[in-house]
């Protein structure tokens, strides 16, 4: 069984079907991109995986544990987090009135009760992720790029096995995108973290970073494959890219 297994996922908001039966699986140590135009259901799937939304139908299994499924009490978000599922938010949610260090400490406290350990570990992560000079700044004083990085750092601090990165590149300039891609690769190579990236239109990421791509449109999976396969897939091109990319 795959590391993350989503089977027949349906999510309805009242009469609106946001996700209409999606299957997807992610192997450990993969970097998978979930792409699709605005409203395709990327964020909704992420919210279902980490338990923020109750699902309507289907099963989600992570690392052999059923997170939610028929005839089972769905796990709560914090329980899912404890199993090793981290996430960042599309609309960044740094804890604004806390310093960068304190933001990351909230994460490192997941594995320790000691103030000192939490701080040292947080300082290590902040340095690793390149936020060292901003350690004592308030989170709200950071640039967008800094905030996105901080979100990743805070999630990384909980020692996740898999991280759901929702639009972690959106709004960044090309240099910052490069840095973020490097970060995601290093997270996998150094810490063995599997990454699932929700990406709307930063194509460079999709092409250069992902080992595999899953394409969503209107809450359905319309294609899946390697970057090369996706870029040449006429269904994807018509539904999403609009015209062939060269």
């Amino acid at each position: 069984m795959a590391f993350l297994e989503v089977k027949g996922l349906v999510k309805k908001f009242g009469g609106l079907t946001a996700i209409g039966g999606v299957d997807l699986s992610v192997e450990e140590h993969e970097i998978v991109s979930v792409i699709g135009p605005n409203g395709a259901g990327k964020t909704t799937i992420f919210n279902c995986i980490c338990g923020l939304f109750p699902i309507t139908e289907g099963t989600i299994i992570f690392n052999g544990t059923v997170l939610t499924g028929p005839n089972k009490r769905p796990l709560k978000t914090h329980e899912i987090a404890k199993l090793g599922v981290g996430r960042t938010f599309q609309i960044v949610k740094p804890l604004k009135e806390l310093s960068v260090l304190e933001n990351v400490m909230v994460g490192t406290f997941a594995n320790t009760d000691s103030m000192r350990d939490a701080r040292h570990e947080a300082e290590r992560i902040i340095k690793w992720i390149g936020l060292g000079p901003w350690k004592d700044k308030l989170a709200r004083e950071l640039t967008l790029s800094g905030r996105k990085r901080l979100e990743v750092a805070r999630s990384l601090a909980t020692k996740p096995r898999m991280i759901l990165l929702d639009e972690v590149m959106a709004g960044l300039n090309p240099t910052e995108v490069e840095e973020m891609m490097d970060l995601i690769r290093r997270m996998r190579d150094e810490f063995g973290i599997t990454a699932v990236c929700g990406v709307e239109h930063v194509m460079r990421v999709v092409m250069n970073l992902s080992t595999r791509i899953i394409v969503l449109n209107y809450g359905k999976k319309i294609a899946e494959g390697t970057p090369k396969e996706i870029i040449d897939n006429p269904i994807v091109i018509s539904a999403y890219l609009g015209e062939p990319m060269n």
Partner: protein
Amino acid sequence: MAYMEFGPAARARRRRGYVLSAIIVFALAVLPIVLVEVQGRRANSTLALLISMITAAGLGTAWNILGGYAGQLSLGHVAFYGLGAYASGLLIEKLGVTSWLGLLVGPLIGGLVALGIGWITFRLRGPYFTLSTIAIAEIIFLLSKTLEPITGGSSGLSWDLNQSRFWPRDPQWLFGPTPGRVPYYWIALAITVIAVIISWKIAHNKLGFYLRAIREDQDTAATIGINNTRMKLTALVISAMLVALIGAFRANFEGAIAPDTVLVRSKSLEIVLFAIIGGMGTVWGPVIGGVLLTLVGEALRGIGEANQLVYGVLLVLVIFFLPGGLLGGAKTLLARLTTRRANQTNQPAALREA
């Protein structure tokens, strides 16, 4: 300005803070002895005001643990105050047991009820939680009025003050035959010091970090693995127990309780104001707020209910001009002054002369 600063300089500053706090507490502890020496019997009315100020600081501090750190605005904290007061009052009036027991039972009952309330209301977020706290306080208020055989209904309970003294007699070696409020003052001071220490401990520990994370964003907190409900319940129970403890003390001190004094809606608002005006989410803000507002309240005693109006105006002013409360405002002012001085000295000589 971060909540906590680390490093050697911050450690040294914190150590100075401990020493300063210890000196202040010591000074407050010997204050009544001086007062009795100077004012004689008249010291009792000064002491009553001081006790009000100290308990107000304690109430603000207790509320702040839930409202300030965790950002869960309770407008019904008087319920716990009243529960503590009634638990303690009933023990004295019906069973005639020692007042000390009330200080133990009051918080226990407050904590248990808080657990039940939190269990139900923490399914609700934001304004819905706040509304439910008002409703619950109202229910308890009405219960105290209707359960007349137990609670004495609207007129409440009263007893001979000698029954609810913590000392069988005041320590005569110190004050002579003057029956006084000094022991009460010490107990009030001890309770508030305990409340502040607990608040400080929480702020500088994992729980404090988790509560602030919850205040900032509950979804984010959950995705980091924080059990929001459990953390909020913990904060509520600690907060409620401290408030109940102060309620229990107050009952012993007054020798009488009634729904309109210990369960009255405006008391809830008062507690909130101590924290908001002083500086929510900080350790010292609610203490400052409690002390100052009690003084303002005392000065406004002549105008009766109209003091609520003054509180209201103060609240609006603070929210508009000092979002961080008095403490936050003072810190900003201090920071501005120090940077201005730094700027002045950094300016080139020519500019300074010009």
